């Protein structure tokens, strides 16, 4: 049996009480007192175990991370003194894209390493914007690619970061007639990215580095933040280097497999300099997806240089920069992917997408749209209990005291999150009957799109659509 890529998760309970969705409210003045049927004592989930002696413990109404919303306390209290409201603090965390639900699920996964599972059906809107306007496909009967639930471990989520030759050539004796460079691959299509905000203490950074090393993936990190201790992570690092300081980091460049450089007019000069220092180094070229440029065309131009991976970057919500009506990364990726195919360059280079990846499903969906893999940054912080409250940006204290985090604990939480994400990717890949993440790249035939489904199935019935489809 081939060796399986398997990382163990280990429960890492939160250090701080997470912001729960619901608040229970008791109108205690109407409480019967020593009621033998007190619903707090009878809670199936025992969530009141610390305070059902409510008369002696006059706490504030508790915000229940653990409330399972069964409503039994509300409906069974003999005096009807229980009610619930949505915790106002819960409404405030995150933003429109990084919703409270995303944060809550990320915390759960970082805590348990398990994928979110629940009973009852889907609860959300019929369709949404961005990634929420597409569904993935599944195979019904003919499934030669999988062997049931236990075959899932053999689905390969590995991707390459190094360039592939346009074609292979062989000598008469069957040996390779062309020179190929070493293959650089990572076992899951997720690269970490140093976040651009937050209390990025040394321990926080080391948490991320340790987790990346454990997962056998890599982390993009500003070269200026790489000191001796960080440099020890060697092959785990992808230093992000500006063209002006390449010469300052010769030693580091000699030790790492890959660097990330900015796209600029003379990026090819930077590549030459890097190759002169380390001839086998993989180079990714980072291109912000701005409305001011034709990024598909620019990517084709970049792909013709001696580089390996194009690193396209959208904002944290997956949106285009410099636009009043910004496009979403899924549409931008499709354009870039298609342009590279048209230029016959797609199979040689790789695309890594940054921005807007906040759930496991986004990884697979970004790959369907044409990426090889993605980077994540905010999710690393959220795994360590960040609430995206932005207090740190204003110089205020962090509510979950990032500065005191233990690196081992932090990395445990991130590893748990990645284990849960990978398992979810496997669920989707398995349902699609695919055994390799690489086979998913650009495989739009394995997806269904809102606009297509409406056109194919509703237009013959309802005619012309009058409300424009806004799923970008």
């Amino acid at each position: 049996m081939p060796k399986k890529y398997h990382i163990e998760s280990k429960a890492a309970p939160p250090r701080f009480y997470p912001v729960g969705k619901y608040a229970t409210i008791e109108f205690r003045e109407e409480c019967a007192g020593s009621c033998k049927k007190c619903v707090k004592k009878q809670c199936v989930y025992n969530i009141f175990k610390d305070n059902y002696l409510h008369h002696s413990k006059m706490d504030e109404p508790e915000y229940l991370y653990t409330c399972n919303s069964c409503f039994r306390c509300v409906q069974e209290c003999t005096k009807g003194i229980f009610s619930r409201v949505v915790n106002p603090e819960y409404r405030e965390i995150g933003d429109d894209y990084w919703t409270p639900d995303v944060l809550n699920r990320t915390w759960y996964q970082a805590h348990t390493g398990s994928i979110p599972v629940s009973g009852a059906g889907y609860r959300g809107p019929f369709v949404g914007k961005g990634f929420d306007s597409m569904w993935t496909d599944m195979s019904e009967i003919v499934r030669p690619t999988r062997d049931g639930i236990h075959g899932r471990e053999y689905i390969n989520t590995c991707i390459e970061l190094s360039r592939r030759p346009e074609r292979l050539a062989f000598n008469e004796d069957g040996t390779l007639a062309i020179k190929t460079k070493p293959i650089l691959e990572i076992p899951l299509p997720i690269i970490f990215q140093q976040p651009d905000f937050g209390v990025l203490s040394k321990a926080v950074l080391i948490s991320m580095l340790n987790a990346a090393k454990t997962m056998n993936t890599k982390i993009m990190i500003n070269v200026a933040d790489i000191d001796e201790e960080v440099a020890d992570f060697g092959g785990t690092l992808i230093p992000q280097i500006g063209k002006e300081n390449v010469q300052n980091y010769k030693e580091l460049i000699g030790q790492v497999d890959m660097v990330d450089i900015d796209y600029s007019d003379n990026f090819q000069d930077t590549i030459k300099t890097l190759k002169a220092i380390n001839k086998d180094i993989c180079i990714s070229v980072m291109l912000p997806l701005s409305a001011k440029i034709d990024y598909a065309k620019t990517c084709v131009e970049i792909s013709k240089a001696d580089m390996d991976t194009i690193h396209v970057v959208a904002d944290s919500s997956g949106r285009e920069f410099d636009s009043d009506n910004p496009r979403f990364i899924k549409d931008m990726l499709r354009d870039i992917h298609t342009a590279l195919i048209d230029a016959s360059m797609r199979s040689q280079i790789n695309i890594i997408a940054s921005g807007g990846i906040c759930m496991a499903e986004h990884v697979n969906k970004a790959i369907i749209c044409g990426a090889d893999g993605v980077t994540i940054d905010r999710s690393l912080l959220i795994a360590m209990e960040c609430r995206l409250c932005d207090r740190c940006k204003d110089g205020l204290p962090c509510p979950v005291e990032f500065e005191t985090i233990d690196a081992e604990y932090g990395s445990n939480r991130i590893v748990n999150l990645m284990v849960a994400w990978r398992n979810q990717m496997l669920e989707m890949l398995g349902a699609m009957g695919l055994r390799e993440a690489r086979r998913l790249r650009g495989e739009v035939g394995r997806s269904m799109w809102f606009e297509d489904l409406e056109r194919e199935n509703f237009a013959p019935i309802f005619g012309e659509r009058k409300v424009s489809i806004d799923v970008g």
Partner: protein
Amino acid sequence: MSPQTTNQTKHKLPEIKEIRSRFRNTIGKYIIKRNTAKCIACGKCAEICPHGVHVMPENYLKPFRPIEHKCMGLSCKETEHYCIEHCPEDAITIKPNPLLDTLGDYRWTSEMLLGHFSMAETGQAPHQDIEYNLGNSGGGFDKMRFIEPDSSLVIDMADEDIDTSIELNKTGDERPKKTISMPCYGGGMSYGSTALSVIVGRARAAQKLNSLTCTGEGGYPPNFLPYKEHVITQVATGLFGVREETIQNCPIMEFKYAQGAKPGLGGHLLGEKVTEAVAKMRETVVGNSLFSPFPFHSVYSVEDHKKHVDWMKEINTSVLCSIKVSTPTDVDMVAVGAYYAGAHIIHIDGSYGGTGAAPDIAKKNIAMPIEYAIPKVHRFLEEEGARDKVTLIASGGIRNGLDVAKAIALGADGCVIGTADLVAVECVRCGNCESGRGCARGIATTDPELGNMIDEAYVEQRLINMYMAWRKQWCDLLRSYGLKSIKELRGRSDLLVHLDYLDEEERKQYQPAPSKKLVL
């Protein structure tokens, strides 16, 4: 209320009986408070309220706490029995219940849940001002409306004369005809995932309604035997509890290839739910998790599938065969393949359907919603010339009576209902069916204590009430279009509009889609 008999089906429809909530405090859209310091217990409120919100039995010194869920709300202001107006001491106040913000979701809104609690209690459409026909999902059924009927078409026909039955064997083969009196039947819920009293209660209701329920993949408890003519045996990939006699017992057998809520993933019953009784039924070991793999390891082609169907047909020479699949891109091809392999019923299960447990990523993302799949399959079967030889059943996101009607107008013959059955017995969709001891409300659990919170008679009557309330809706709808049978509604998508496909002016004629932003 007297029992009804339909002319077409000659089936005696069951009696509606009011059956109250299992819980002491019901949930209403409004909170009604009676200030005890002000109240002089004159009993005026109880005297005038026709809905039973205020109750003060004779010889009682004070009225009972208001029964809030029965209150018709602020619209009562327009009536002559508005308690606030009549209270001589101004002791009564009414305000929206903030609890509703914490109940329900985009698909099953709090009002849809309350509406179904009410229908299951009374057997009537709710009199309260609640929206129970439309969810808040912003698409699919929630954006479809039936067109304004032409008043000249309206027919004067009593409910009992309107035919709501559907045929399940249209193939013309030698097997028996099977007619059920409702255009929907109960989806599979296994012994193990759901309390025994719930699944047996469903079977009892199915018998009274002349409908069907389904075993799910959990074996065939002997408690089903008195109702066996109304119980479908499901054959799924784990083959739990599938024996010759369970195939011989049933009028219809269902091959479950996939489930809409988790297409391509198979099933997983957690060890905690595998009690001694469940293990015995499934012929497994107590406490061990049970996996139903995906796919059928013996089916990799339509020919393999046909072999399965033939095998079942040999075991029970009068059984009808239903094929349950989910909704991938090629669901139309799958449906036609299933038909040619000998299916009597093609059951397509859309991606927003219910489940006892599924990864959230699967529920949201894999396969297409049923609203797209129905017309796709209906059209393809028509093009193949097979549409009138097979029964098309839709499920997965069919929540209420009007959803059933919309699904039929889109092209299905009927629907399979799961979640609504559970909501009728007061499921609040908290989603904890799978965790720990299972459902805290005693529905989806085999826990010895929780599993006994419900009795079969309660389940039976609540379901009868809900389906009879739905039936009234269908009868009203059919009458308004001059249709005498729900079969005539099939494929009448010309009676539907979709709000997004209408001009702004036209759109104003229809009830707007609810669009409240929820905190998920």
